[in-house]
């Protein structure tokens, strides 16, 4: 049913996607601060899920679920940075401290960095 090139592409994309999901979860468990954990999950996990969507786009015909997979990739890349940005702003306003010497960029000039 599926040709050898298609099979190889799907297997490679599934392997890459699973690897990046594992990287994101290890970062979520091991990193020390909420901002660092967000950095791990919002990039690595999104890349892993997008790779699995791409495997779906290769496997399914493009007039059916393949097009839905491509729409899913676009949607993930639009929403994951937005969500991570909103959580990080909320965490800063709740007063979660940064690690070490890091500072919020707009703390000097007033209104954006108010806790």
């Amino acid at each position, binding site marked *: 049913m599926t040709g050898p090139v298609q099979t190889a592409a799907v297997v490679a994309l599934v392997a890459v996607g699973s690897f990046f999901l594992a990287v*994101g*979860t290890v970062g979520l468990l091991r990193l020390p601060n*909420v901002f660092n954990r967000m950095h791990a999950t919002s990039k690595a996990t999104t890349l892993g899920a997008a790779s*699995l969507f791409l495997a779906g786009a290769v496997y399914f015909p493009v007039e059916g679920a393949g097009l839905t997979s491509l729409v899913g990739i676009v949607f993930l890349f639009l929403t994951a940075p937005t969500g991570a940005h909103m959580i990080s702003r909320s965490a800063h306003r709740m007063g979660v401290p940064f690690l070490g010497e890091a500072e919020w960029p707009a703390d000097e000039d007033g209104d954006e960095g108010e806790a």
Partner: protein
Amino acid sequence: MVLEWAVRAGLVVAAAMTLLSAYRVIRGPTVPDRVVALDTIGTNVVAVAVLFAVETGRGLFVTVGLVLAIIGFLSTVTVAKYVVEGDIIE
């Protein structure tokens, strides 16, 4: 045959990562930690839905994954607004 076993291995990995993320939901020191972990669980469940679609050959489950991604994004934004401002719709 290779494709089926690869997809099954991917399903096992994604499910295990979902289970491990629950540790951060339970033990996370602050509320944003829990929100980030729940967002990660949502993305992992999207991955599980797509892998399940490839394994069974039913393209409908890709749409299920897309709807789950939409719900996860909406819940993340809602909780991020709620923990700071206390209300969602002014």
